[in-house]
């Protein structure tokens, strides 16, 4: 088991390096001059000041050197200063990442709450009315563009019925009730698509397990059906679901981008969009790297969890 983990981590390293190269290079694709943006219009018209800034930022050195320089600083925790508000990027991340994480976790919890029971019932009663309904939900949930869902929710709940506040964020520490009320619509928006995918996954893997030989044996032995389901089927059937969850975390990050924009939530996703659009280079580099690492880590954790739960792997 330990060797497996180490193996996977080692495999991840070159991917992380490649991802860091991509993060670093994005800004050179984007039109716009970092020195110009940091200095602002007036100062930059002064040739000397401009050149001095370029040297200070190291923009006159060859690209590979700039990359290594950036990488070195990043590893040491210095992610640079935002060109827009002159704040260290690490502070910005520290403020925003927890918000996105909260949103993601809430969305995930919501998705699990819906998909687990729905999927299990569907698998136990295939082709019933409930199953058809759930299948439709599964298909539909994946097909809804989630920003449209967000707009619909805002319209219905905040404009027409005025039950929920349409946007904004209140830190949990400050006011838990307000925090959760404001996070409700965004979490639903983000989590619905996920719950659809998960439900299908739960259903299909449970179905597969329920038809397996050892379940038939257990039933033949006379074990009560419920016991059969609980003890055997669920345990084995949920293995692939764990992997799917891990993989979907990456998609959740992506979905958070638009959800945060619609609901004005100050998280990392929205920060990424704003920074890309406004050419805030250090932030773009740092945030894209953070997101990539987040996705890779969640994949890694999913793999490890899978290896842990699935007894067949132990003996590999």
């Amino acid at each position, binding site marked *: 088991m330990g060797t497996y983990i180490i193996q996977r981590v080692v495999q991840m390293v070159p991917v992380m390096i490649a*991802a860091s190269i991509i993060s670093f290079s994005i800004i050179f694709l984007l039109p716009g001059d970092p020195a110009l943006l940091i200095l602002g219009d007036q100062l930059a018209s002064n040739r000397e000041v401009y050149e001095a800034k370029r040297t200070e930022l190291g923009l006159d050195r060859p690209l590979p050197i700039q990359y290594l320089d950036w990488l070195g600083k990043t590893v040491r925790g210095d992610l640079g200063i935002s060109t827009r508000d002159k704040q260290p990027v690490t502070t910005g991340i520290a403020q925003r990442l927890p918000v996105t994480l909260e949103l993601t976790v809430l969305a995930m919890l919501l998705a699990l709450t819906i998909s687990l029971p729905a999927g299990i019932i569907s698998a136990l009663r295939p082709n019933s009315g409930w199953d058809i309904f759930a299948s439709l939900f599964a*298909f539909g949930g994946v097909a809804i*563009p989630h920003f449209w869902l967000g707009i*619909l929710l805002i*319209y219905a709940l905040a404009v027409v019925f005025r039950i929920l506040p349409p946007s904004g964020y209140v830190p949990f520490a400050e006011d838990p009730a307000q925090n959760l009320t404001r996070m409700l619509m965004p979490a639903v928006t983000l989590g619905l698509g996920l719950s659809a995918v998960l439900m299908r996954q739960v259903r299909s893997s449970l179905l597969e397990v329920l038809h397996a030989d050892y379940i038939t044996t257990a039933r033949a032995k006379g074990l009560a059906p419920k016991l059969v389901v609980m003890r055997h089927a669920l345990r084995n059937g949920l293995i692939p679901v764990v992997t799917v969850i891990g993989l979907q975390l990456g998609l959740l990050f992506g979905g958070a981008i638009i959800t945060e*924009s619609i609901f004005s939530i100050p998280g990392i996703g929205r920060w*990424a969009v704003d920074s890309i659009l406004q050419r805030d280079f250090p932030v773009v580099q740092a945030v894209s790297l953070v997101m990539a690492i987040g996705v890779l880590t969640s994949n890694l954790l999913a793999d490890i969890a899978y290896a842990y739960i699935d007894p067949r792997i132990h003996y590999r």
Partner: protein
Amino acid sequence: MATTAVRAGATLGAERQVRRDRFGTLRRLLRTRMTPIALAILGAFIFMAVFANAIDRYDPINFQSYSTANQGPSAAHWFGTDYLGRDMWSRLIHGSRISLTVGLISVGVGMLFGVTIGVVAGFVGGKIDSLLMRCTDAIWAFPALMLALAITSALGRGLVNSMIAIGIVGIPFFARLARASTLSTRELDYVLAARAMGASVPRILGRHILPNIAAPLIVQGSLGLGTAIITEASLSFLGVGVQPPTPSWGLELRTGYQYLELNPAVAIIPGVLIFLTVLAFNFIGDGLRTALDPRLARRGGD
């Protein structure tokens, strides 16, 4: 020589026996519950796209009169009007062209490059496989929308660039798929036999590998079309995709969001269209999976 081939063929032949009747695949496709409905929906959208000029009622790009702006659905304007007084029905019909085109081309781009990378990686193996897969994994690590956003910001906003961006973002997906299929196909008896016989690489690829990976690719391609359409709508929603005055479903949703209180129809209808299209693609993809996968076909379930 012939015996080996026959023996190899026999393994697959047993599978093929099951579907000897000519219309088997198609029949199975249609038998999957929702597929006929999905095909009908898709057919309607394709009809809309192809005959847009014939069935629109007003000019979709040039506004008529500012006094008719922001109206809800009515007899004169079936889907209402937008903020410049343009007829939404006409705009959305022309928008279907954009959506379908974007879907097809971006999936095409993604498939083309992705499959090439995946097949090469799977077939050649070794260090090249490692290198290619690390690179695609690295691209895969970034959230799709963010990467697409960065690429369109780099290349410039607009339709063509968003197609390129969405295509690039889809490459790892197809690459992985192609590689996995290639790996499993590569080890089949008759392929090994062909290689032993000295068949050239292009021949092996063309005659053996590609046809066998075609099935999962088509299934994923169909599902990928849905994702591509949603991604394009997301990019347009953020403002970096299709630019006005070109109509696109995502763009209409963006303005609908801004005029939500004045004219909610504009926020709701394009979303319905996107939803139906993607739903149709998903159902068809699922149906194709059932139809084309021999294992599932035998078990008859899912």
